[in-house]
């Protein structure tokens, strides 16, 4: 899986309450989640995420199991999230909703152009190539299908 986008740098230990607050969970309207994503961190951030690659610190997505967190990030237009580690439920949720994740500890400057190749396991930051851990074949299959729903539509 290939992709590219502009870097948006975020700190470590971003929890799912910060990604999408509980007060926005009483709906199935995905556009609401997309427009309020990261609101309690920076209310202006949601509008800067189209075509972005989030480069965050460790333990991204810790906290609750709310899948709305991964959906909100993807719906806001984020191409991928890069972090040294992810909380495990967020990791599964992101793959399941078709949001690529890359486990890597990379330097970040806002606006850097980031390219990635998940099958070959590398990320390029402003032209400099970093080798990263590849996802399991099944996760790549789920991502390629566009998420677990589409994966099961095909495999059922």
């Amino acid at each position, binding site marked *: 899986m290939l992709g590219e986008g502009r870097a948006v740098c975020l700190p470590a*230990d971003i*929890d799912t309450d910060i990604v999408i607050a509980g007060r926005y969970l009483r709906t199935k309207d995905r556009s609401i989640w997309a427009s309020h994503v990261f609101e309690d961190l920076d209310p202006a951030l949601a509008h800067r995420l189209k075509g972005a690659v989030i480069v965050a610190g460790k*333990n991204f997505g810790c906290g609750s199991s709310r899948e709305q967190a991964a959906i909100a990030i993807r719906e806001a237009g984020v191409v991928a999230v890069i972090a040294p580690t992810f*909380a495990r*439920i967020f990791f599964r949720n992101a793959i399941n909703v078709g949001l690529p994740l890359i486990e890597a500890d990379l330097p970040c400057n806002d606006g850097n152009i980031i390219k990635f190749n998940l099958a070959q396991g590398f990320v390029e930051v402003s032209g400099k190539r970093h080798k990263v851990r590849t996802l399991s074949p099944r996760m790549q299959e789920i991502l390629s299908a566009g998420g*677990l729903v589409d994966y099961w*539509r095909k495999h059922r």
Partner: protein
Amino acid sequence: MSTLSERILNAPANEYVDRKVDRAFACDGTGMLALEAWKNMGASHLADETEFSIFFDHIAPANNTTTATLQHELREFAKSSFMNFSDVGCGICHQLMGEGAVLPGEIVIGADSHSVTLGAFGAFATGVGATDMAAIWLTGETWLRVPESIAIHIEGRFTGAAEAKDLALAYVGELGTDGATYQALEFVGEGVKDLSIDERMVLSNLSVEAGAKAGLFYADDVTVRYLRERGQNAKPQIPETCTYTREPEFDLSDIVPLVAVPHRVDTVKPVDDLAGLPLDQVFVGTCTNGRYSDLARLARIVKGKKVAVRTIVVPASASVLTQAIKTGVLADIVEAGCTVGTPGCGPCLGAHMGVLGEEEVCLSTANRNFKNRMGVGGEIYLSSVATAAASALEGEITAPEVA
């Protein structure tokens, strides 16, 4: 030799496995999204061999028309597909699954992060998101990476005013919020033998706050007796010598009452360091500390006195509430000026029934104090029930007295 996770999942650490799920459950929040994924998968029949349940606990009763309409759809689905269905007021999913359903050795998957609570019974219990749950409804299986394990060695007995919650905050403080990511915790040592099921559920519950995938106790005589009283036969699990990645040790007699300060569960301080901090609200409840023994402890401390700050008490289940009514514990709590909410998650996730105002401060017995979780601009401190009770009487953070 294997860890308990390796034994239950029947594979060595770090291996990816597909496993049949014995019990799978979702709540009102995650269930709605799982139902949408289920429909989008084009699925129609539930897998045969898994026990499926839906619990209404997160925003129950519904807070507005939108929620009520979404819940109506999920309720109809649960009933028409013959899942076990637990409606408004029955209580929190983890508590109800722990009232005699989950058995040692089972694989239990919940669409809620605190599903780890059920590791208290020697089950491999973990949380997933909604789409994973929909796939389990469809297939009865899920994939898992067998975790490596950290041993939390527990020795001694509680001697002062500390309780299981204080140990839980102590180990999260030591490990950090990601200290156990991708790993399981196993609670072992001489000290676990004297811990009740309620206390074990507190310790398992907080394991996800250290990032853990599961938090397991080996089933022993305490487990077997608890389950027998609820009509279940279970056998003890005998620990084997095995390899842990870390083995932090805790002597219960050294544990003192602690508070987790905003906005992280791992920023833990002794209650004494925060004594005198004014409070706007005290909340006693949740899948961490809303059980009967918690309410009884609260009642013992506030009985015959008056709380000095609004104090919201939410029993974890209807049976907890019933027991508290029958024993008079509930009357003691209400006569002391506390108010009581519908069994369920209460204000823990900031959706209803006790949301905080800007700059308000709450002392809560829950498990998360993330920024804005209980309301925009509100601050959450986490403590034991005894600390919450002592603090409610004073209207400020107060160290509990030795029982």
